[in-house]
């Protein structure tokens, strides 16, 4: 008896390769005219809305206020570009404080004891009378600074209203020292030592046992610097948001610090102290900034802040950021999601899925090929859309004189590439959902509810911050954190609501949430695709 073995070629079928599968899916994608039009539409809508939004941020130069929002401070002229101080680190800064100073030639140190820090609120807070108000980041201490010009390099040791002793430098640097409040019963001793470009800060509770808080390098510090005592106190701000109403109010405060046991080493050529109201401080406080000196005891009052400016509405810094130009991303995302959903559901609608699976029986590989094709196409569309919105939008806003936050190029790159990545992964997410539910209407509904609506809710003021924070942590829309235009500084009290572009998760952390949801959807999709009849 002979067994008949059917002929099997030992050569591998070239059409079996994953490359062939990718090519097949790419052909399906590019030959459906509606899908290509959908992708082009996504680019045009997102970039077009970006330019439109940029146009709407241009002040109208009428006699009326150009903004409907209640901003705390209107910088500059109504029609000109507001002027901001650029700090030594390249960021926009506020540099306003009362400075009791002497020049210090070469290396040396200054040591003081702080026995009191008190605060005073202005009369503007909710109509309440002026009174004792010590804000958490009011500051009193010693500083070594490049000069008295705003924005110059510095390092400072200070006691604060609610955050203990801090070493701060060049506007964004901050290191904590001894915690707790200062009082006559528990004074704080502070010391700054200059050695070349290095400035070292020390603190002590008793003046004998000293702790080194940190050393910072201030590049290019001149041989003669200004050193001395300083006091400043930032705006007191409150924000509220409920459905339909977003509000902020802020008013200036003033702090008064009491210093004694001032001792110095090194060469101090001047014979007396000079008082300087750097940046001219704020108005509206009952007391006038200044200092007086009685028998080695200095009482210094100041108002303002030494800190980075915070961008966004209701804040001190520029109110417009490139994130505003990208609010149209949601419309482009809808278009991409519609294409991604139909890329899968059309197979079921036309019965093409049976041909597809007959040609390539490994269903997981089919889904992988589809995901790569739609992801790559969506990334390309997203990149063009985001680059168009950001670059053209910036140009339009700049030339029109908008109050635009200057974006450092690495952040701008992260925002553009990040937006493309969000659109690409969201397209794969939609594809996986469409594979599970097989109906494009249901798939689009799920994507709109989980990504588009949370994003839309996060944009306007007047949605409770607790709701948007929660949505932006757990929904796939968390990935839009990649569009955060400016860092959040814990040492500056400001409006950090999601509607102003400050997301509850870190940029790549938020992206990981979307990737997690997408991975979960893909696993379920592969499981269902393998298990169900096509």
């Amino acid at each position, binding site marked *: 008896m002979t067994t008949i073995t059917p002929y099997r070629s030992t050569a591998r079928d070239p059409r079996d390769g994953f490359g062939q599968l990718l090519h097949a899916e790419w052909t399906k994608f590019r030959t459906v005219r509606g899908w290509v039009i959908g992708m082009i539409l996504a680019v045009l809508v997102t970039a077009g809305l970006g330019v439109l939004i940029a146009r709407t*941020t241009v002040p109208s130069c009428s006699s009326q206020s150009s903004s409907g929002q209640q901003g705390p401070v209107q910088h500059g002229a109504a029609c000109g570009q507001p002027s901001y101080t650029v700090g030594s680190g390249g960021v926009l800064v506020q540099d306003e404080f009362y400075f009791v100073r002497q020049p210090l030639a070469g290396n040396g140190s200054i040591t003081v004891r702080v026995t009191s820090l008190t605060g005073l609120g202005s009369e503007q807070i909710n109509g309440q009378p002026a009174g004792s108000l010590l804000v958490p980041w009011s500051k009193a201490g010693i500083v070594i600074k490049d000069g008295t010009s705003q924005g110059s390099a510095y390092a400072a040791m200070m006691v604060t209203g609610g955050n203990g002793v801090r070493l701060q430098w060049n506007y964004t640097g901050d290191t904590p020292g001894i915690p707790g409040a200062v009082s006559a019963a528990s004074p704080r001793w502070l010391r700054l030592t200059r050695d070349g470009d290095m400035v070292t800060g020390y603190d002590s509770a008793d003046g004998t046992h000293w702790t080194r808080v940190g050393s910072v390098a201030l590049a290019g510090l001149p041989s003669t610097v200004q050193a001395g005592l300083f006091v400043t106190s930032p705006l007191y701000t409150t924000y509220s948001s409920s459905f339909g109403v977003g509000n902020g109010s802020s008013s200036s405060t003033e702090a008064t610090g009491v210093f004694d046991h001032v001792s110095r080493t090194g060469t101090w050529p001047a014979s007396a102290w000079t008082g300087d109201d750097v940046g001219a401080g704020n108005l509206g406080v009952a007391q006038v900034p200044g200092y007086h000196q009685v028998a080695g005891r200095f009482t210094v009052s100041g108002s303002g802040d030494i800190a980075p400016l915070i961008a966004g509405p209701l804040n001190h810094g520029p109110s417009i950021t490139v994130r505003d130009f990208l609010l149209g991303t949601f419309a482009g995302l809808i278009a991409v999601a519609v294409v991604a959903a139909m890329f899968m559901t059309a197979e079921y609608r036309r019965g093409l899925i049976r041909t597809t699976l007959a040609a390539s029986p490994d269903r997981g590989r089919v889904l992988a090929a589809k995901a790569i094709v739609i992801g790559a196409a969506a990334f390309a569309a997203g990149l063009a859309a985001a680059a168009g919105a950001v670059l053209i939008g910036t140009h339009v806003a700049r030339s029109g004189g908008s109050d635009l936050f200057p974006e450092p190029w690495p952040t701008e790159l992260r925002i553009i590439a990040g937006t493309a990545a969000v659109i690409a992964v969201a397209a794969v997410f939609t594809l996986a959902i469409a594979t599970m539910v097989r109906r494009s209407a249901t798939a689009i509904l799920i994507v709109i509810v989980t990504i588009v609506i949370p994003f839309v809710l996060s944009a306007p003021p007047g949605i409770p911050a607790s709701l948007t924070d929660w949505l932006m942590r757990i929904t796939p829309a968390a990935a839009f954190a990649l569009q955060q235009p400016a860092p959040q500084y814990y040492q500056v009290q400001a409006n950090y609501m999601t509607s102003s572009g400050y997301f509850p998760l870190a940029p790549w952390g938020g992206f990981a949430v979307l990737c997690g949801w997408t991975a979960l959807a893909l696993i379920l999709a592969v499981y269902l695709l393998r298990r169900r009849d096509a």
Partner: protein
Amino acid sequence: MSLPAAELSRARYGGRARYGREALHAEWTKLRTVASTGWLLLGAAVLTVAVSTAADAGATCLSTGCQADPAKLSLTGVQAGQAIVVIIAVLVVSNEYSTGMIRITLTAMPRRLTVLAAKAVLVAGLVLVAGAVAALESVLAGRLILPGPVLRAASGSVLYLVLIALLSLGIATAVRESAVAIGLVLGLLYVFPVVTSVAGNQHWQRHLEQIGPMTAGLYIQATANLGSLPLTPWQGLGVLALWAAGALIIGALIFRFRDA
């Protein structure tokens, strides 16, 4: 010699009014026998009331004065419920295309405009009922007294939902594919509030709010500071009505002259 289908059916049923009634009956049977219609209508009403109640609970009025408009606040849910209304209206048309049912429908009822009109009347009626229940519940949850401007805000919100449904129906008829229609309508609705939320230029902000179907239509909910609105409440609803009429006319023209 055989008569054309249209004349045949006219001969059998006799009269235009009778034909319209039959079309309504046929569409009603189709709608009522699909399980999703009831669930979606219920979902639209429940979502509207739920979000409205959440908004009432979440509102905090400072002692210095409540800036929020209580009627508008109590009807916040309409902004969420409208998404489901969009889906109901889109599926009425696009489901027929995705299943191929449209060919049977048009064979039985060759007068296409009558078919579309019957669909529009039924969708409007269903949304009117669901919207009225939802708006009444929302206002009651907000403990507001109905007569006066609140009545206008509540009944106007119902009309708003009806117009949103008609706008969706028109767009769905034009594009046929459910996913594309839902994407287009929701994109059109949300794009104006998102863009105006950051518009620093008041001139642009007012004009964009005036022409946006959602922004202008929702003026009907305002009962406070009417003088500061770019349009009166009824003018705002009129803008949405123009959008809905435009979408229906374009949808009807395409439906009339395109192969099914």
